[in-house]
């Protein structure tokens, strides 16, 4: 039969029986609506969350360790042995040459500083150290120490000895002030951290008010460094065992005190609207020269060039290169891990699981509708026996008649898909509009979210979802339409025309 005839007969049939077609395909539409809406919303939520996470500096950071021997390691293989050795900037320079996506690196280590309040003369370090040995003093002495400490000193600060570039690459827009050259007497300060002690001490209202202020600092704990090539045998996820091994290394690096050093606040990290991830990255940052000072104070007889760290954090030039980089260094001496990537994978898995659960409900609706489709198609065949007879009498083959009804059943699938998808898209955007109104009605929430690059929520309907539901719909209705179509094709023209 000519395709023109197919098109005309089908279009007239649809025109005449549109209400029945819509009703027959409504089950498919409900199923497609449920699957598309829930998947669209969860995909939207998932991508909003992942995009928000990816705006954070930590998203581009990868923690790397060096193994004694090259070996492929699954960092989720809890209980497996890891034989780590220390490594230093020389190793990182070589790594950077091999993997140019590494834009910056810094050791995973920090030093503790005690900071004297402005215009005070008091040895904060000594009080802090005595406080640690409170068990050998009377409660009154301890109380007096704490009072004196609070009056004169700012809480002990754990200062990162990060490379400044790594910090900038994370979130430059959060840095207030000039930090292109951080000399050995300069620091980057946080603003709202430590319960506001820093800004209160200087009466600063804005981050820029802290720039140029001088602070007196004493080292109370040096960097954790160990001799190159030496390390620790740890178990992945080893908990107490791993902590003990690391504590042992740390204990060897302790210093007891250092002279007071005057440092200038060269830049301030604007942490006023920092969320959980933001505050994690804000603290004091001291130049790497402080490492040498702290190391020499703690180990006057040792050469720092022969020492290194058990871990480094590297910044990757783009979020999309993080996972490939980790995969590239697999099987070498180095192991890479991104906490953010793991979180993203967990979020993706969670939302995919959620989508699958909701999709089951949609599938149930689709399956239930199949019986309706079979029924409608059988009625259609019965009603159109005369038409089948006429077409056969005029030379239509069995195959043509089968195709005519088969296309009709496929059309039911397309109609159900179209209706379901359209309603799902409208409902999805309707829900997101309500969510956006609610979010914007609370300025604090809106401001916090904008800190994460989230200005609005929108559902996301990926192409595979639309294609998948179309295939599901058409497949369902064509399977349902197969038997009625075959029955139509088998009709004896003389019999069906005699029945008229």
């Amino acid at each position, binding site marked *: *039969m*000519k395709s*023109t*005839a197919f098109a*005309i*007969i089908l279009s*007239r*049939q649809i*025109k*005449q029986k549109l209400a029945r077609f819509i009703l027959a395909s409504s089950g498919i539409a409900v199923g497609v609506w449920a699957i598309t809406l829930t998947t669209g919303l969860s995909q939207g939520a998932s991508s909003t969350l992942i995009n928000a996470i990816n705006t954070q500096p930590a998203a581009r950071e990868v923690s790397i360790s060096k193994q004694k021997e090259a070996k492929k390691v699954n960092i989720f293989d809890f209980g497996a042995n890891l034989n780590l050795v220390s490594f230093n900037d020389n190793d990182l320079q070589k790594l950077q040459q091999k993997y140019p996506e590494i834009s910056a690196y810094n050791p995973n280590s920090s030093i503790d500083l005690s900071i004297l309040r402005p215009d005070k003369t008091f040895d904060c370090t000594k009080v802090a150290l005595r406080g640690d040995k409170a068990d050998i003093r009377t409660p009154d002495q301890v109380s007096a120490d704490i009072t004196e400490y609070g009056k004169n000193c700012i809480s002990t600060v754990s200062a990162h000895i990060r490379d400044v570039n790594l910090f900038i690459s994370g979130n430059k827009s959060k840095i207030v002030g000039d930090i292109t050259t951080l000399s050995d007497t300069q620091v980057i300060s946080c603003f709202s951290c430590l319960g506001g002690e820093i800004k209160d001490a200087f009466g600063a209202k804005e981050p820029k008010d802290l720039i140029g202020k001088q602070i007196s600092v004493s080292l109370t704990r040096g960097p954790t460094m160990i001799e190159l090539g030496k390390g620790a045998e740890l178990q992945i996820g080893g908990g107490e065992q791993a902590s003990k091994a690391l504590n042992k290394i740390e204990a060897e690096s302790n210093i007891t005190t250092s002279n007071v050093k005057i440092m200038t606040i060269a830049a301030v990290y604007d942490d006023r609207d920092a969320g959980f991830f933001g505050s994690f990255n804000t603290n004091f940052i001291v130049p790497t020269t402080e490492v040498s000072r702290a190391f020499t104070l703690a180990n006057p007889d040792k050469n720092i060039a022969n020492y290194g760290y058990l871990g480094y954090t590297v910044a990757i030039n783009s979020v999309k290169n993080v996972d490939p980089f980790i995969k590239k260094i697999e099987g070498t001496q180095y192991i890479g891990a991104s906490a953010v990537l793991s979180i993203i994978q967990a979020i993706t898995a969670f939302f995919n699981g959620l989508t699958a659960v909701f999709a089951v409900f949609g599938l149930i609706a689709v399956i239930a509708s199949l019986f309706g489709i079979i029924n409608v198609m059988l009625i259609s065949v019965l009603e159109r026996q*005369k*038409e089948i*007879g*006429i*077409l*056969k*009498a*005029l*030379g*239509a*083959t*069995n*195959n*043509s008649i089968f195709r005519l009804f088969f296309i009709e059943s496929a059309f039911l699938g397309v109609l159900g898909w179209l209706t379901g998808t359209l309603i799902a898209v409208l409902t999805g955007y309707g829900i997101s509009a309500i969510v956006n109104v609610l979010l914007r009605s609370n300025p604090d929430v809106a401001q916090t979210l904008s800190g994460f690059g989230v200005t609005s929520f929108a559902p996301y309907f990926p192409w595979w979802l639309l294609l998948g539901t179309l295939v599901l719909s058409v497949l369902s209705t064509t399977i349902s339409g197969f038997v009625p179509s075959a029955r139509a094709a088998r009709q*004896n*023209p*003389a*019999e069906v*025309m*005699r029945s*008229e």
Partner: protein
Amino acid sequence: MQSLIQARELKKMFGTRQNPVHALGPVDFEISKGSFTIIIGRSGSGKSTLLNLLCGLDTPTSGELTVGSDSIYKYNPNKMAAYRAKIGIVFQAYHLLPNLNVRENVLLGAWAGDTKVDENRADELLKMLGLEHRLTANVKTLSGGEKQRVAIARSLLINPEVLFCDEPTGALDSESEQQVINILLDLHKKGQTIVMVTHNPDFIPLADQVIHLKDGIITK
């Protein structure tokens, strides 16, 4: 005249093996090319059963039907469909598709069997049959005579080897009946082979050959 159709021992039974109903035959006859054959008989005489067998709409219980040089009951379903696409059939109940307009119903004669024709021929035929003003009309709005003329146009669109007519005037008033008979006579004059089933003995003088059926058997 050259023989076009030969029926040999053609027999049709309905019902079950236990309760068979004899509908036709065995019958033997020949139809010549370019002839006007009338199959006549009372209601229930088996004339429509015979026409269905001639048109390939049904299969006989036994016997053979040769059209040209082919025994058509040996055809597979696709070849049988191709045979039906080459012949023209006019039914008493017209059997037009109500969803299609007049022109589309005529074109269906070629579309259904995927036969290549110049679609302008549909317009020419409708003009010849006096329906040029109803080309896009819904067939539901036509009179019985008009519907039958559309059905005739549909059957003629493909230049059929044989035109089979099953009581073509059975549902028409006398004026329309005369119009349809005149059309058929015109076609016959132009050389069209026509086989017409009727119960009306008035048409006997018009035919070259008459097959009288009674209780499924040819009596004359």
